[in-house]
């Protein structure tokens, strides 16, 4: 087994470890207990495994764990601070954008990076749709998710 030593932060906490080069970042995060990171399609189609790497959204299933060396990773677990939901998470609750919940952590991270990137801009529904094109949801029909992103953008 080939391993590489990596240093990274996950949700602001520092870690150092030897990582099997065959692992995806999704494998690594789930093994460490960050189970908000879901395995959906495994090929970058569904976005259920979306995390932020240095504030950039990526499909962690198509991202080698060793690439996380010297990077800052954010997962849905870390968005909730001192027991308080983030504005994006709050908006998902308010708008009823969560049904079965499997896609939710990935979508929360997609919305979070989308809004951080477009801070201060007035966003159309079309722009919100394009910004969430990498995430699939089979329950909601997406309208409540778009509402949540727009609501969170105003917070």
């Amino acid at each position, binding site marked *: 087994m*080939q391993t*590489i030593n990596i240093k990274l932060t996950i949700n602001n906490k520092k870690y150092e470890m030897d990582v*099997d*080069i*065959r*692992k*995806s970042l999704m*494998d690594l995060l789930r093994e460490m207990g960050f189970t908000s990171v879901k395995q959906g399609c*495994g*090929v*970058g*189609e569904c*976005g259920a495994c*979306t995390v932020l790497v240095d504030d*950039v*959204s*990526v*499909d962690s*299933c*198509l*991202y*080698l764990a*060793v*690439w996380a060396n010297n990077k800052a990773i954010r997962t849905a677990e870390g968005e909730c601070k001192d027991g308080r939901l983030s504005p994006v998470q709050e908006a998902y609750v308010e708008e009823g954008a969560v049904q079965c919940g499997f896609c939710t952590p990935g979508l929360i991270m*997609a919305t979070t*990076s*989308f809004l951080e990137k477009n801070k201060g801009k007035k966003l159309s529904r079309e722009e919100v749709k*394009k*910004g*969430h*094109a*990498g*995430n699939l949801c089979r329950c909601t029909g997406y309208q409540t998710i778009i509402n949540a992103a727009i609501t969170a953008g105003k917070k």
Partner: protein
Amino acid sequence: MFPIEKYHYASSVDDAIQALAADEKSKIIAGGTDVLVRLHEGDTEYGCLVDINGLNKLKEIRIDDDGNIYIGSLATCTEIMEHEIIRKHLPMLVESLATIGGPQVRNTATMGGNICNGAVSADSGCAALVHEFDLVIEGREGERMESINGFHTGPGRTILNHSDLLKYFLVRPEQYEGFSGSYIKYAMRGAMDIATIGCGAMLRMDGQYIDTLKLAFAVAAPTPIRCPNAEKAAEKQIPTDETLEAIADAVEEDVKPRTSWRATKEFRLHIIRTLAKRVTKQAVENQGGAC
């Protein structure tokens, strides 16, 4: 876990080339949005990887005093699309890259990979062809430059040798100054889809006449292609409906679409004719003209 048997994290371009040369089974991994999908499917052809992600110099995007634009092969689609220089000078490339996958894929996928994996459907392929990108490649015999024209030799095939590494794309000012462009991707879905047909145009007007039209297609032949016949049909013409029709007729001589599960040959040809007219019209309008 991915079935990776051997993994080398390259510390320099030379180191990458040596690692490639040392093992004929080795393959380059850049953004990983194709290679890791193959590995996920258990494709052992990709079991021996040379990882170039540490080569930060290959991420650079810059312009020199003469207006030559350099785009590093490791720059991601998002980095290219959001770069000021690219937005200013190569808006049609921005349009093309925006049609690839979704945000997460564009955040990791590289244009180097999109061109070098030889995909017939490469969305950046049309932009590369009409801007006549030069590719600066490092190989066992040193550095050399190749044109994008002739770079693709078949589905999934290019002129690259096994130990070659694309370092950057070079776009010369004469390939973008005075041109306007347009790219349209026809796919079944509005995002996260492979092109049924992709079509890009670059155009320069001379008064009311079309001075130069450069037209390219993806998925219209075994490689991304330029369309010399259609381009000739547009030369020195006033962009009228008749001219657009002549371009559509001529383009049939340039393309070789095939039937696949995505679309029949006949339907593809219909899209090709329609898009040839539509991108030309759009490019004329983007230059302030009317069709």
